[in-house]
Structures are given as C-alpha cells and as structure tokens.
C-alpha cells in the first residue's frame, strides 16, 4: 500500500489521482492513521499553505513520529512543504522543522531584481520552470534534464549539505528544487500538476525500491 499522509492541510485528491493513474493496481490511501503509514511500502508527504500551520496540524494529529520513522526506513517522497518540513527551520513564522536534514527554508527576495524588460521578480514563484538535474537518480529515469515542472511557492531550501541536492532551478538565483538522500526524495515543485514529466516522476517513485 502507498500512504499519502493527510494532516488536514489542503486537498490531496490531485496527488491521489496522479498515483492512481500511473499505478491503477496499487492500493493507494490518503490517510492520517499512523498504522497505515507504518504498513505502507511507500510514503508520500505532501504539503501546501504555510509551514507553521503544516507543522502544527501534523503535531495535532500526532503524526510527527510516523513521518520521521517512514523517512528513515522506506521510499519516501516529499512534495512542496513536504520537502521544506524535513529540514531544520524555516523563515516562515520562524518555525522549527522536523530536523531530518540540515538546511534552512528562506523567502525569495525581490528587492533590486528586474528582468531584461525591467519587470521585477514576482512572488510567489508560480508556473513552469526548468529542473536542472545534478546527478543520476532512479526518480529521474525517462525525464529529460531541464524538463519543466510546475512550481508555486514563496520559500525555498538553502541546504547545508550540497551532496543531497539532486536538482536546481533558476529564479533570479539558483535554488535547490529537489533533494535525494538514501530512501528520501523530495521536490519543491508539484509532480501531480506537472503533466507528463510529473507523472513519470511519480511512476518512477512507485517503482523505486531502496
């Protein structure tokens, strides 16, 4: 069974639909039950909205330990705030994250930024941007380097550990848009909204064994 962790922040139907499309035979559960997370062979940790709210809702459902255990033991996919929460802390509300990985979540700064036409950087970073793969990984299989994925976020990861950065994206500055470490893979973009490239990444995750 694949568990998509539901801690009450936003709708996970698109994530569910995408998994169901690429893997119709697999049992896929949107769940806030720690037993499901324990029994799952793959775990998806999505997230949207503000990180302080996400952490609070996660703790209200007593899911922190289940998430940490899954992230330490089996194929684990973090999406958007689900990536951000894995790290030490975020500038968003100065909140502490789960601390599984070393890094800080920072806000894009658009002071003194302008493109060639004089238009300043928009926040949130919203739309389709290129994902520059930095190394080989099973989750990049059949995905071209620089394929575009759909992003929507105002905060980004500044990783302390360069070796976990598996892809970067350019938005006024280069930032880390995907990390990989052991059984953890996490992305800032939304594969469930990234058309064919996104569905391929989800398929790769489903087929990933660690």
């Amino acid at each position: 069974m694949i568990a998509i962790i539901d801690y009450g922040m936003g709708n996970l139907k698109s994530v569910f639909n995408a998994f169901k499309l690429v893997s119709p035979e697999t049992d896929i559960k949107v769940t806030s039950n720690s037993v499901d997370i324990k029994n799952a062979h793959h775990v998806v940790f999505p997230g949207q909205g503000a990180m302080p709210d996400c952490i609070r809702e996660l703790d209200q459902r007593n899911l922190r330990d289940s998430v940490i255990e899954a992230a330490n033991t089996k194929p684990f996919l973090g999406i958007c705030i689900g990536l951000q929460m894995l790290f030490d802390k975020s500038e968003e509300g100065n909140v502490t994250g789960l601390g599984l990985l070393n890094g800080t979540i920072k806000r894009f700064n658009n002071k003194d930024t302008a493109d060639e036409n004089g238009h300043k950087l928009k926040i949130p970073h919203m739309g389709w941007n290129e994902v520059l793969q930095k190394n080989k990984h099973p989750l990049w299989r059949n995905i071209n380097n620089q394929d575009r994925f759909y992003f929507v976020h105002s905060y980004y990861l500044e990783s302390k550990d360069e070796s976990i950065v598996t892809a970067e994206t350019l938005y006024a500055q280069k930032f880390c848009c995907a990390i990989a470490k052991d059984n953890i893979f996490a992305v800032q973009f939304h594969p469930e909204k990234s058309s064919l490239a996104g569905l391929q990444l989800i398929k790769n995750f489903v087929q990933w064994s660690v």
Partner: protein
Amino acid sequence: MSLAKRIIPCLDVTDGRVVKGINFLELKDAGDPVEIAKKYNEQGADELAFLDITASSDNRGQIFHIIENVAKEVFIPLTVGGGVRTSEDVRNLLNAGADKVSINTSAIVNPDIVYQTSSRFGSQCIVVAIDAKFTVQGNKSFWQVFTHGGRNATGLDAVEWAEKIAALGAGELLITSMDRDGTKKGFDLELIKAISDKVDVPIIASGGVGDLQHLVDGVKIGGADAVLAASIFHYGEYTINEAKIFMKSNHIEIRL
C-alpha cells in the same frame, strides 16, 4: 530567467456544458468540458481556467462534478471562478479538485474574504479577478473596477484595488479589460502594465486577444506573467501549440 510565461485557455461553463458566446445574448454549445480540457492539455496548455456562468442556482452544483472529472484526467493546474461568495465555496471547489479559485464580485463586497481564504487555504490558491474599464470623471481619468459581470460600477481605481488585495493575500491577479473584451484588438497594455508594475504577485492578462502578436505584447509590453484567451482557441483559429511557438520565436520563455 527560465520561468515560462503561461498560456491559459478559458472555458465558460453553464449547466454542465462549455459554451461560446456569439454575443452576450446568444450562447452556443461548444461541447463537453472534460473533452475540451483534455484537448487543450494535449495541445500544451499550461493551466486551464473555468468560468462558471450558470445563471440558475439549481444547476450550480454541476461545476463540482466537472472539476472532479477533469482533475482525474488532466494533470495541470485548474483555476475555477464564477459566483464564488464564501469561504465554503472556495473550500468546496478546492475539494472538487481546483488548484486555484478566482474571486471577483464578493472580494469587493467583502474584501475580508481574500484575507480569510488566503490565510486558511494559502495565497497560492486565491486568485482575485478584476474587471476594469477606462473611465473619465471630470478632470480625472482612471481604470474603474466593475462587478457583477461588468454591470455595476464601483468607483474603485483598479490599480489601487490591485495593491490592496495583493496586500490582503491574493496570490495572483486576473486582469480583464472590459474595453477590450470581445474586440479582438489586443489587451489593454497600459492597464496590465500599470498593475504589473505596482504589485509583486503574478498577473494574468485577459480581454481582447485577436491574434498571436497580442499574446506577445501582453508579456513583453504589459509585463504579464500569464495570458488568458478564449475565442482564438475555441474557434480553432490557433492551437495553443501554435501560440507557444510564436511566442518562443519572439524570445519569450515558453514550455514546449
């Protein structure tokens, strides 16, 4: 910059069907929303916008079924607007599978809804739609905000209103020029640029697209982050892919 500018086809939906307006009085059936959404997705649309123009409240629930069915087959962002009044309306549309909900009239009646919904669901899913018309009052001229599908003048200055709702938490603004809507003369570039220069959030330009150069101008001159069009795509004058190739040949970042 490697972020692509977006092309967003807009589907007007009433009573469960996509319609094309021949003029404001005559609506012609244009087909099944799921099929049309799939077609635009295959052509390379970056997002889809649905505007629910169902007049009768009895049939308003159909939009939820449409969005649910589209979201099962089309994996790109879906924006839904039309008649959104309360926080519950927003929640129900998000639960049906919308990624963003567009609020128009009710944001003016009660601006607090923008703050409430963006705090509750995140700014990323709250789009505020602004319908504006160039207005001369005495020796003052400005773009005036209209509501109720363009019927009611509000007295509000569109640029000031845009700044206010961006500060209240809108994650994106959809700017429609009523002077240009349906004319095929191109966007009101001055309006788009005036707002884009003043706010930090992404801007979708809408109203008046008649050819592909208009899309280029919306981005290059207006500073829009996304361009929305209906009729040039519905009537098959251009495919979305053709529009993207043309924009790319004009040195605009595009997802192909």
